[in-house]
C-alpha cells in the first residue's frame, strides 16, 4: 500500500519559473527510496510537498493526514539551541499536547534508540555534529511516523560518522518499518540505504531513471564490497551524468 505519493506535480516559484516536475513518486509501506539528482533539481521541494510544508502549483499530493505521521530530518540538525537533547526530541509530542512528563519519557526512549541515552541533558552546542544529527533523528522518530523524510541528513558529517549513522538508520528502520525517502548527493550512500533509487534530471527535476538493488534491508555485512553494489552504483553514476547532460 502506498503511504504517500506525488502525481504529476509541478512547482513554480515566482520569478524563477518551474523548479520541479512534472514528477511522480510513490512510496510503499516499509520501503526505503533514495532520491538522487543534480543540486537544485527539486529534491528538497519534493520532500516539502510530501511533508505538507508546501503546495504544488499543479498535480496531486497524497499524504498521510495524521499529525506526526510524517517526520522530516533536514540537512542541518535544526535543534533549539536553548533546549536539552531530551527537550528537543520531545518537541513534536509537546506541540501535539502530550503532557510534558509523558513527552519527556518518550523522548528519553527515542534518544536511547539512537544511542544517546547518556546525552539527554546536553544542549546542542555540547554535542558533536553526528550526535546532534542523532537527536534530530530521535525527534523525528518520537512520533512513530509512518513516513520518514530524510533530506541529505549526512551531508555535513565526516565519512566514518555517516557510515555509522547509515547502518544505525537501517537498524532503527527494522524496528517499526516506516516508509523512508532519503535524499542524497552521494551515489554509494543511495545504493546502500535504499532498495529503490530514483535518479532525477536537472532542474526542473523529473524522473530520469529508477534503479533497484536486491539484497534485503538492512544490508548484509560487506555489502559495499559486493559486485551487486558496484554495478548499481555505476549505473546510477552513469544515469546521473546523463541526466545532467540532458538539461544543458
Amino acid at each position, binding site marked *: 500500500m502506498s503511504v504517500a505519493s506525488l502525481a504529476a506535480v509541478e512547482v513554480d516559484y515566482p520569478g524563477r519559473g518551474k523548479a520541479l516536475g512534472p514528477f511522480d513518486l510513490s512510496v510503499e509501506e516499509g520501503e526505503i527510496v533514495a532520491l538522487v539528482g543534480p543540486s537544485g533539481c527539486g529534491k528538497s521541494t519534493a520532500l516539502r510537498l510530501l*511533508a*505538507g*510544508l508546501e503546495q504544488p502549483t499543479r498535480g496531486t499530493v497524497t499524504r498521510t493526514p495524521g*499529525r*506526526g505521521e*510524517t*517526520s*522530516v530530518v*533536514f540537512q*542541518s540538525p*535544526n535543534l*533549539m*539551541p*536553548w*533546549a*536539552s537533547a531530551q527537550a528537543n526530541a520531545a*518537541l*513534536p509530542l*509537546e*506541540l*501535539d499536547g502530550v503532557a510534558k512528563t509523558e513527552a519527556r519519557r518518550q523522548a528519553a526512549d527515542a534518544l536511547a534508540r539512537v544511542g544517546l541515552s547518556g546525552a539527554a541533558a*546536553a*544542549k*546542542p*552546542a*555540547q554535542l558533536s555534529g553526528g550526535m546532534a544529527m542523532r537527536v534530530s533523528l530521535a525527534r523525528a522518530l518520537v512520533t512513530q511516523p509512518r513516513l520518514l523524510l530524510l533530506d541529505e541528513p549526512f551531508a555535513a558529517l565526516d565519512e566514518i560518522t555517516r557510515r555509522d549513522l547509515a547502518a544505525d538508520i537501517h537498524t532503527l528502520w527494522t524496528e517499526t518499518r516506516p516508509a523512508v525517502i532519503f535524499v542524497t548527493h552521494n551515489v554509494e550512500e543511495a545504493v546502500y540505504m535504499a532498495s529503490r533509487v530514483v535518479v532525477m534530471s536537472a532542474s526542473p527535476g523529473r524522473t530520469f531513471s529508477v534503479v533497484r538493488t536486491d539484497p534485503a534491508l538492512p544490508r548484509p555485512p560487506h555489502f559495499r564490497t559486493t559486485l551487486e553494489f558496484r554495478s548499481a552504483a555505476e549505473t546510477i553514476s552513469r544515469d546521473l551524468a546523463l541526466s545532467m547532460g540532458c538539461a544543458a
Partner: protein
Amino acid sequence: MNRAIIDVAAPLVLIAVLVAGWEAACRIMAIPGYFLPPPSEIARAAVAGAPVLFESAWNTLFMALKALVVASVLACGVALVVALNQTLEKAVQPLAVALQVTPVIAIAPQVVIWAGLDHPERAIVTLAVIVAFFPIFSGALTGLKATDPDLERLFDLYGATRWQRLWRLRIPSSVPFVLEGHKVAGGLAVIGAVVAEFVAGSGGAQGLAWRILESSNRLQTARTFAAVIVLAIMGALLHAALRHAERAILKRLRGR
C-alpha cells in the same frame, strides 16, 4: 610573557605614564589648581570627599537601575505586543525612532516640570527610562523576528499554534538580542540620569551630576575631576556587570 598578563598590564602602564606626565606638567609649568589640578590633588580630593562621592554615585546608580528595570519591563512588553501584529508594528516604529533620535536634554526641562519641581528623582528616572527604552525595545523586536527559518518550518510541520510558536520559539530566540539591548541600555540609563540631574539642578537631587555642578561652580576643580572619575568608573562597572550577566545567562541557556 603571558598574553593575558600583557592584556591587563598594557592599559595600566599607559594610564600610569599619562598620569605621571600630567603630574609632571602641572608641577613644572605651575598650572593653577582651579584650571588643571595635578592627579595627586585629585586623589586627595577623592579621598577627602569619598563618603559624599560614594553616596552620590549610589544615588545616581540606583536611579539608573530603577530606570533600567522599568524600561526593561516596558520595552519587552511593547515589543511582544507589537511583534504579534504587523500593523501595530508599522504604527509604533516611527514613534519609537522619533523618541530615540530626540536628544534627551531637549525634553528634560519639560519632564522636570511635569514631574514636579519637588520630585527631581521622578524626572530623573523618567528621562533615564526614555533613553534606555529604545535599545531594549529594538533588540527584543529584532530577536522576536529573527527566528531560524528551519525551526519555523519544523514548527509548521508539527502543527504548532501561534502561542506555542511564541513561547517555545520566538521568545527563546530573542533572548540574546534582549540581553544585548540591556547592555547598551545600562550605559544609556546612566547618561540619561546624569543629564536629568544636570537639568533638575539644585532641586534636591543628590547624584553625581549635582556634585560635579556644585564643585565646578565653586572652582573646586580637583573635586570635579574626582566626581567625573567616579562617574566613569561607575559606568564601566555597570557595563562590566551587565556583560558578565549576559555571558552567564547565555552560557546557562546554551550549555556552554
